[in-house]
Structure formats: structure tokens, C-alpha cells
């Protein structure tokens, strides 16, 4: 196969003529800029890229991408994108969604898209709040969240989006942060290379209704001690001086954080995103505490499984390969199937 022709696109090529209308200071700007800058790397013609979104602040995203795009209805983007992707395997289909859109009203479609392993790249902007409807708590808000709709604190426990995706056996699961462009693009790159569903949670700051939700992960003073930067094939250590590490205590189900100095090197877990059993990535997803301490970012899981689109298209191709008649001839034969009789 010859090398594909370099398209020489730039970030500018992916900017649409529409004025971007998020609130000044919104984390969505940084994500948009990072995605636009990353897109040329794919070397896919703009016309073969489609962004599908639901409803919410993040879902305005397609309007700002100079590709094909659909701003659909609340929660349904994974379903709509599934129909598009299955019927058009030649396209690169991206879903942009938020914590309310994907995990509340659209929870069902999300888990089924992941279970089917539809060839979609799903970017979930998680700001842990409803922004477009002006500040109600979301399914990722912490318990006791005080908002307009929960004046004395929310009573329900939040979803951990990655745990949920892993429960649905998503084949690619990652997490990144709006403000870390380099890291964000590295996760997008891995997601784009993945065949099947790629689920990427992006921590995104809503400076109006939930400002500073992820501040400890961004502040130079705290971030290194709070963040676990996952790297495939590397022992999981973190902290300013690498003073923390992740181990799998014998007898336990999950992973735990220890002090590196007091841990024999062979006990430190070496990150392997290709472990087939989702339990490992699930254990990673359970590490963060309520204060976001021990938050892993990067690619948690990246395994191979046939994509739904691929299997469906293969079934169609197999059926088509068996026939040599024209469609009209086949149709005439189909109509006359079964017991027929002729009247002269």
C-alpha cells in the first residue's frame, strides 16, 4: 500500500466561520483549540470527519468545527452517531458530550455504544455541573453539592464516568484535563488510533457555575502530588519526587497507593493498558479520593475487540458476495419467493 498523501491541513482549516459563544474563561475554549490543532495529525480530509453532539454547553462544539457536524438532541448523540458510523464506515465519527448529556439523559445510549464497540470517538467534557440550564447538580457532582436545585445539598451519589464505561467493557478508556493541551492531544491521538469505541473523559472547568472543580489537579503546588500520569509499560509512580506508587495488595480486589520509599520495586504495578480483564482498569478508576487525590490520567485501557460496524459491514459484504444478479433481478426473485401461483 502506498503512503497516503499528506493533506497539509492546519488548525485554521478546522475553524468554522461561526463565532464561538461559550462564556469567557470556559474550559471548552481550551479543548476546542486543542482538538483543532490536533485534527491535522489525523491526515483525514475534513469532509470525512463528522462531529455529533447532544445538548449542553459542550454540545455546541460541532458548530465550531469546519467538518460535517450535527448538534442533535439531549442524550441521543451516541445513538445517532451509531447509525451514521455503521452505515458509513468510511467516516471518522466523533461524539462530543457532557456529564449531564452522556450520563443522565443519555446514559442508556452511552453504555450500549460502548458495549457494542461502535467505531466512535466519544469525548465527555465533565464539569460536574449543568451549565446551559444555569447551575443544577449533575450525575458527576459530589454528594452534598449545593446548587439551585439542591439548596441543602444533593442527596445522590455520583457516577464515576470511567468506572461506568469500564463496566460496559469499553475497549478504550482514557482521561485528560482541559488545561493540559499536550496531554489532551496525546490521549486524543491514542483514541483516534483505536478501532472501536474510544471513551475519553476530559475534566473541564465551568468558571461560572462550578469554578475550580479540578483546581487541585491544575495548581502547580498540588498537581504533581494529586495526579497519576499513566504511561503504558511504566511502573506507576507519582508525586513531585515520585514519592508515591500504586500496588496491588495481595488478597485485595483493588489497587492502593503506597509510599515508594517503603515499597519494594517489584511490588509497584507496571501499567498495562492492554490487559483484557477490565477489572484492572476499573481498579485504577477507583483510586481517586473525594478530594481528587490520586487521580489517574492517560489511557487506562486499550484492547482489541471487533467493532460493531466492522461485523455488520462484514455480514453485508458476505451476503452481497454470494450474488451476481442485478439488484432488480434479485428483487424480482425475492418478491416471487414461497408458494406462488399463476393465473392466465
Amino acid at each position: 500500500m502506498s503512503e497516503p498523501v499528506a493533506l497539509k491541513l492546519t488548525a485554521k482549516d478546522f475553524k468554522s466561520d461561526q463565532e464561538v459563544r461559550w462564556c469567557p474563561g470556559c474550559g471548552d475554549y481550551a479543548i476546542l483549540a486543542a482538538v483543532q490543532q490536533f485534527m491535522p495529525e489525523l491526515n483525514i480530509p475534513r469532509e470525512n470527519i463528522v462531529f455529533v453532539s447532544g445538548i449542553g454547553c459542550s454540545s455546541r462544539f460541532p458548530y465550531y468545527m469546519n467538518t460535517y457536524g450535527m448538534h442533535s438532541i439531549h442524550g441521543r448523540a451516541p445513538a445517532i452517531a451509531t447509525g451514521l458510523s455503521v452505515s458509513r464506515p468510511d467516516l471518522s465519527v466523533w461524539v462530543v458530550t457532557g456529564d449531564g448529556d452522556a450520563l443522565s439523559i443519555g446514559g442508556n445510549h452511552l453504555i450500549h455504544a460502548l458495549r457494542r464497540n461502535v467505531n466512535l470517538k466519544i469525548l465527555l467534557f465533565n464539569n460536574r455541573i449543568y451549565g446551559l440550564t444555569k447551575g443544577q447538580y449533575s450525575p458527576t457532582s459530589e454528594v452534598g453539592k449545593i446548587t439551585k436545585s439542591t439548596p441543602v445539598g444533593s442527596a445522590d451519589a455520583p457516577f464515576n464516568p470511567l468506572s461506568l464505561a469500564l463496566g460496559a467493557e469499553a475497549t478504550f478508556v482514557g482521561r485528560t484535563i482541559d488545561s493540559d493541551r499536550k496531554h489532551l492531544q496525546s490521549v486524543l491521538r491514542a483514541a483516534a488510533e483505536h478501532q472501536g469505541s474510544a471513551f475519553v473523559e476530559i475534566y473541564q472547568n465551568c468558571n461560572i457555575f462550578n469554578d475550580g472543580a479540578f483546581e487541585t489537579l491544575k495548581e502547580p503546588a498540588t498537581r504533581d502530588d494529586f495526579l497519576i500520569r499513566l504511561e503504558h509499560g511504566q511502573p506507576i509512580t507519582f508525586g513531585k519526587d515520585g514519592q508515591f506508587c500504586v500496588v496491588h495488595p495481595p488478597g485485595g480486589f483493588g489497587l492502593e497507593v503506597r509510599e515508594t520509599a517503603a515499597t519494594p520495586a517489584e511490588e509497584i504495578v507496571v501499567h498495562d493498558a492492554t490487559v483484557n480483564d477490565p477489572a484492572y482498569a476499573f481498579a485504577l478508576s477507583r483510586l481517586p479520593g473525594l478530594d481528587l487525590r490520586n487521580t489517574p490520567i492517560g489511557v487506562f485501557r486499550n484492547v482489541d475487540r471487533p467493532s460493531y460496524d466492522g461485523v455488520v459491514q462484514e455480514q453485508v459484504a458476505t451476503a452481497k458476495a454470494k450474488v451476481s444478479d442485478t439488484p432488480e433481478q434479485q428483487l424480482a426473485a425475492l418478491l416471487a419467493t414461497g408458494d406462488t401461483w399463476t393465473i392466465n
Partner: protein
Amino acid sequence: MTKQIRQLDRVVIRFAGDSGDGMQLTGDRFTSETAQLGNDISTLPNFPAEIRAPAGTLPGVSSFQVHFADYDILTPGDAPNVLVAMNPAALKANLADLPRGADIIVNTDEFTRRNLAKVGYASSPLDDDSLAGYVVHPVALTSMTVGALAEQEVSKKDAERAKNMFALGLLSWMYSRPYESTLRFLERKFAARPELVAANVAAFKAGWNFGETTEDFAVRYEVKPAKMQSGTYRNITGNAALSLGLVAAGVRSGLPVFLGAYPITPASDILHELSKHKKFGVITMQAEDEIAAVGAALGASYGGSLGVTTTSGPGVALKSETISLAVALELPLVIVDVQRAGPSTGMPTKTEQADLNLALYGRHGEAPVAVIAPKSPSDCFHAAIEAARIALTYRTPVILLSDNYIASGSEPWLLPDVASLPDLRVEFASEPNGSDGTFLPYLRDPETLARPWAVPGTPGLEHRIGGLEKADKTGDISYDPANHDFMVRTRAARIETIPVPDIEVEDPDGDARLLVLGWGSTYGPIGAACRGLRQRGLSVAQAHLRHLAPMPANLGEVLRSYDRVVIPEMNLGQLAHVIRARYLVDAIGYNQVRGLPFTAAELETMLEEVLKNV
């Protein structure tokens, strides 16, 4: 013994038994044999929603009615001339529908004290005079079947299960049906188990021979072939015809068909059928729910497929928001609603026409769509193609309202010549349409008011669409008051100006003053009632609506040219309401919601009453 042969012009037979007795299969086979003979046919299955309701109980009774004649018929028949009752429950559940003098063939083996008690018979109706008004043929169906299979290598259970073939053999003999197709069918069905082929064939032949030898059946009947248009026919149900219509729409448009569906009675058979036709490029997706089913179909339409979703009323309710999105996106989408009795779960296996309001109005905002309804099982084929034609040409959702009566019922279908089917080819947008080289996704075709269908993958036409209101031509987000008013009116005009054929009136006497207007599956019973009246010298005109949105341009004129308009519907007057509001015509509704189709007789009686005051 030579048996007397009597000629009949028409017969209605109802096979009834426990839902595990194979009555649907028996009825299907009898229908197929009858079709081979060239009679006109109409069938009506009637079964409980439970897959296996408790054996021997009234809720567990399943039946299949077949009407065949030497002339063209319009309905499965009001009342059976013959009832085959496989157990006491089947007798009790169906007796009230039988006219006096009808033949009843009963399986006496099942008339045990226990089975009689299950359905509240204190004593066997076979032993008292409660069936005196009927011609009862007591037949020990089960034990004779088991006896006939004594030499076969099958279990007693399998032998007993073959009793439906004994019954079919007997009825096939009684009505002089050709049985070769049934023997071929049994060979196919039990190909993996030759001993069952042998057993079922033996049971069938035993039933046939029993008829020939027993003195209880002194007469054999014949129904001559009907005079039908020449050509090749097959017997087909509405759901099968609809499925083939969708395949045909794919072939004639050159587009892949994408069906998103969630299993629901009575529409699931369309999903089953279409899933077999992958070689036509048909993709079927069993979605996680009704909303995903229509969402995936819309996504496929966006990508250049013919997006279709099939469901029943509860599913349409769930799809409502996505249909509204399709209205805003102005993309083709076919939504098939095989109506069943509602509200809520209602009676899933029973028919009704009560989703007309839902189809016409069941969306938020001003969200008009096209609505059409087939009038008979075979018409579902052509209605599906028409729905696809409107969806593709005018870039709009189209709701097709079938119902359980025609979806499960069957009739002979004159196979169409493929080349004569409508040409549904569409042109995707391929280059910018704006004066300055830009692409305007909402610049309309002045004739059809359709916007360009620019599918992803087309260079230079990258654009964004969505549910937010769009500016005319550019499709950019717009909150401009005048623009919204313009777009709402344009979307209404888009549907209202779709050209649909004029409604035709059937008034052979030419002097009728009463018009009966119907829509959808009531065509058969209304037609049969009108024929009955005309045979008695009364004049009545019949008109039937296929297009419910938009309505034919001549409808108002037609309605106003009659002194009286009667609208029979299996709902509480939904079309009548529209007609009264739209045309200021004082239409009279005739409504029933029993989960069953109208009988021709009840409509005839009703219309005769109306005629007295015209």
C-alpha cells in the same frame, strides 16, 4: 363410498385451539393450499399476547380465520361457516361468533371433565342439546392421530402434536384442496428430523382418509377459482409486504436501507424479515430502545441511507423528540407504526386505529410530517414505497400507519413488475450552491421546497446542522423573530404542498347521496358493506384516504358533494375530527374499539340506518 360434491361460492373457516396447538401454522397451510387453487383469500389470525398462556384456558385460545371465494373478497369474513375446535376452550371462546347451522368439528379427546371444568362447562356441551342449532362433527382427533402413527418412530408427545396435521388433512379433503405444497412444506420444516416429516405427513393423510371413509362427512365441497387479473400471485401478510416494499424502495432508490428497530408487537416481524435481506445492502440494527432505534435511523439518513424505524404506538411516543429533530434537520426518515390497541400496553395483539392523532400531532412545536396508511395487507408493499418516495423527494419524516389487522392478515398479491415500480433515485448535493461559492444547506428547491441532501464525505460542502432554529438558506443558528416565523411556515408549507393523488370515489350507481369515508385497514369491511347495500338496490359511495397528511386537494369538494358523510374508524373519531375541523363538513363518526376489525354486516346495518334519513 361415493361422496356427494357440492359447489359453494365462498367459505369461512376458523381453526381454533390452544396457543400450543399449532393453529396459526394449520391456518397458514390451508391458506396456501387454497391459494394454489386460485380462490381469492383473506385471512385473520387472532392470538393472545402470552406465548403460552395456561393450557386449555380461554385466554390461551389462538385462532386463524380464512375466507375464500370464487370471486374477489375484501375481508376475512364476519362469521365462520366452519369452526375447528381443538378443545373445550376453543369451542367456548368462538361459539358466539358462529351463525346457526354452521359446522363444528370438535376434538372429542380433549373434552375431559378437567378441561371442561377449566372453562366453566358443568357438563359436556357435546352431550346436551346446547349445540342443537349446529352441525357437530365429533372427531377423536388426538387418539386417531396417535393411532395412525403407531408404527412411526416418534414419541407419544410428538405423535399427539401432529394432530393439527390430521385436522388439516380432514379440512383439505372436505374442501378439495391440493395438498402437494403442504407435503413440500413439511419436508422443509422438519428437514433435520426425517421421522417428524414422516409422522406429520402420515397424520395429514390419516385426516384426509378419515374424511373420505367416515359417514359423518357425507358431503365434500368445492369452491371454484376466482376470476382474478392474470399474473403471478403469492399470499402475503401486511408485515411481509411492508418489508418487501422497503427492500424495493432501496433497490429503486439505489440507497442502502438502514432499519433501526426495537422489538415490539406487532411490528417485530418487519425487523425479522428485513434482517434476512443483507444482500440488498439492508442493515438492520436491534437498538437498545425505541429512541436509539429512530436516532440510528436518522443518523444513517444523514449519511445518505434510507433511514427507517418500525414500531407500534408506544414506540412512536418514545421517538417523538427525534422525529421533531428530523423535521428540523429536513432529512428523509420513514417511521412505520403498526398500530395496536392502546393506551399504554393496551392489548398488544389486538388491532386499533387510534394513533392517527399521534401521527398527525404528536410532537412538540409546529412539527408537521407526511402521514400515509395502507388499506390492505398487499397494499403495505406499495405504501412502503410511497412513504420512501415522499421521504426521499421532500426530505421529510413520513409516518406510515399500518395496524395489526392488515399486518397479520393476508391476501393474494399480484406480483408487480419490478421495472414498473416508481423510480426513487435522488441526487445528493455535490457542489456549492451559494453565489459566492459557499454552501447553503437550507437553500431550497423552489419546486419541492426540499433542501440539498449533502452527505458527509462530499468535499467542499462541510456544514453543521442541528435542532436549533436555523436561518433561512445559510442554516446558521438564528433567534431572529421574523426568520423563525418564516421557517415555521415554510416547514408547514413543505408538507402541505406535497402533491398527492386525488381521492377517488367508488359510486357505481352514480346517484349516491351518502359517502362513506375511511382510511387505512377499514377499506375491506367498508367495501364489503357497500357492496352488500348495492346488491340490495341501495346507493352508497365509498372513498378511502391513503394520504392523511397532506390530504388530497379534491377532498373538500368530494365531501361537500354528498348529503351525508359517514366515517367508520377503530378509534373514537380521530379522522372525523380532522375532517370536521378542516372542511366544515358535518361528518358522522361510527366508532368501535374492541380490538377487532369491523364486520361488514355491522357496517351494512349502520349504513342502512343512516340511509333512511338521507
